[in-house]
């Protein structure tokens, strides 16, 4: 579900790519500004659609949060201590957000080799995060804490799992954008990674929130 919109957003970002001078399918309003850096949200259909998607994804986690708060109040809640690899994972994910910003700036500055390098770093850090999450699950399982062990562990596996699912969707998008950067598919100076960066930062913020909910709150 999470990878689908990203694919379509890429398609829709260039609605008239079917041919030069094709007025037939170019949306009159949205056709003007999908690439414009500072255009308003309402003039930029892909960006608007992405924000809607992040809104509905947030509602999913709000639903989980209400369940979490209610379930925590029952008597059998035994708090779980966070596997220490989680803190490393957090650092990895936030670093990937930072390197992505670096790639974005290089791309805007038309420094394509540097943009590629920064973007490659972002991908490596993102994949490392996923690997780190798998290690966190395995370390818990090795300690005898499974999905059904207690409500806190159930929520831990559920919430981290749903977050990773969204992140895997982001990685599919990453590959698509990485290929585009390699193929020089952006016009010079274009902020081509803007949409992907918005989604990727959203995932980092979401992760910070989940960490707070699971282990601080």
């Amino acid at each position: 579900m999470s990878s689908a919109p990203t694919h379509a957003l890429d398609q829709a970002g260039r609605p008239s790519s079917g041919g030069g001078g094709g007025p037939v399918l170019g949306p009159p309003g949205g056709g003007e500004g999908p690439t414009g850096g500072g255009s308003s949200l309402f003039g930029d259909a892909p960006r608007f659609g992405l924000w809607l998607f992040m809104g509905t994804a947030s509602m999913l986690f709000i639903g989980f949060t209400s369940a979490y708060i209610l379930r925590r109040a029952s008597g059998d809640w035994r708090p779980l201590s966070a596997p220490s690899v989680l803190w490393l994972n957090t650092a990895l994910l936030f670093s990937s957000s930072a390197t992505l910003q670096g790639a974005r700036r290089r791309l805007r500055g038309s420094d394509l080799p540097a943009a590629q390098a920064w973007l490659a770093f972002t991908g490596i850090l993102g994949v490392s995060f996923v690997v780190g999450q798998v290690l966190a699950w395995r370390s818990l399982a090795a300690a005898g804490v499974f999905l059904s062990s207690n409500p806190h562990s159930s929520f831990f596996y559920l919430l981290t799992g749903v977050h990773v699912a969204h992140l895997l969707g982001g990685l599919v998008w990453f590959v698509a954008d990485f290929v585009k950067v390699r193929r020089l598919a952006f016009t010079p100076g274009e902020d081509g990674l803007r949409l992907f960066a918005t989604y990727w930062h959203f995932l980092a913020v979401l992760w910070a929130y989940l960490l707070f909910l699971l282990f601080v709150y």
Partner: protein
Amino acid sequence: MAHAAEAHAAEAHAHRPQSFIWRYVFSKDHKVIGIQYYVTAMLMALVAGLLAMMVRLQLAWPDKTFPGLGRFLPDGYSDGVMNPEFYAMLFTMHGTIMVFFVLSTAPVSGFGNYLIPLQTGARDMAFPFLNGLSYWTFLCGCVTILASFFVSGGAAAAGWTAYPPLSALRNSIPGSQWGQTIWIVGMVFFIASFTMGGLNFLTTILNLRTKGLSLMRMPMTLWSMFLVAILGLLAFPALTAASLMLIFDRHFGTSFFLPSGLAVSGAPLLAADGSPLHSGGSPLLWQHLFWFLGHPEVYILMLPALGFTSDIIAVFSRKAIFGYKAMAGAMVAISALSFVVWGHHMFVSGMSPYLGMAFAVGTMLIAVPSAVKVFNWLATLWRSRIRFETPMLWALGVVSLFISGGLSGIWLGQSAVDIPLHDTYFVVAHFHLIMAGAALFGVFGATAYWFPKMFGRMMNDTLGKIHFWLTFVAYYCTFFPMHYIGIAGHVRRVYDPYQYQFLKGLQPINEFITVSAFVLGSAQVFFFINFFWSAFKGKKAGENPWQSNGLEWTCPSPPPHGNWPGEIPEVYRWPYDYSVPGAPTDHIAQTDPSPLGQRGEGH
């Protein structure tokens, strides 16, 4: 049409995918996708309607044997007598399919996809690929949910609301073995498809409106689609979350919804070491999450019907809709209130009386914008020159059902009245009149009204009127008596009501209801004949057969790929300038720049 326009059309065709498969099957054109959605939903309606017929057969004559049905459905009937488990599957799947796969899909995904770009003045939806993907995701959901009849144990049987623990324990009932899991998977497909649709609807309406089409110039149909998309995006994730947790409870041993102390057929559920298999979970949590979706969901069904009705009434009264701003505001208010009233489905589940009071007050507040809508429809009709054509009859049917179903809603909204009536046929009567009935009549009205645009041909008016009157009378005969048997204590979801002495006297009423339901079901034959006959053999419609003002009536019928052969038209007014004094005709199209009329609010 001029040659220049034809040249433009030829250009449009050049951009259009050439092979049949890409044009009509895996299409990205909103019109093809809209019709695909609509036809699929109507076929699902046939299935769900037949399920309801079997439910009615059982309720009227539970002691009769039906060897024919037994041969046809060997798993559902033993020796011609329906199995109780099969009865539970029937009403569960009837509700699920009707609510999600028919009455959410036909008006929203069907007409929404078809009409939104035409009414906003766009070539297509904002994300055509996503739109095509959403249809195919939906179809996967349909196939999945239908497949559940054929798995071991049969289809889900825990009601369309799927309350745990019944739905969360795989050995609780036969339908909970695989049927319930498949039900959840089907729902996840549906939610994914509806989410993709919602992203498209909102983005298209807010980003792609043509020049001059301010929000306050939008037709009511467009307003309703706008609000429905918001409701869907905000409400459905709660069910996604709940469904995931239910899957985990069913298959991975978690206890989100399952408390301790459960027993199935008298045997307590214990782990190998003797401790309870589940503990601490809350079945109420599911109810909260489900109804946080569930109540906005019923407005997802209702709002398009209200939008269609407003537009049809204006056209066939040849008058502007009365109180445009109040009408739009009422729909906004209904949508906003729908998020704070879910608790009125749970008055008997146990909640603080103060909380119940808050939910009851919120619920009754909905009567205010609803009454505004009824008042404004009546005021639009008042002293107008009504054209009683088929779309108008359906629209008036919606008004009628909205009033009769809405009044019982005020009863049920109060906890003191709801507690004795909860889970009786009074509730069944209420929601079939207002939610199911008004939504269904809205779909039929929209079909009669926009069919000429969709297929370029008129539907047969005589067949349409026969279909309407039979449906209208049979609908009331089916559902109105349910109020009485509900007050008499006839409970819902009961396989054989006459096992209770005090319900024995209600059998004649149940027989009457069942006969009415059969008439209602049979009447739909007229619709299907009319639909398919007219699509191929109906009278040619032309661009604007109803003398309407809307933007969708300025393009050819059916519209070509890209919708308008030439430039996208500019909009100078709202779609409600009918019978304007001094105007040459009694309708002024939205694209007419003349200064006459009220024009709505521009930029």
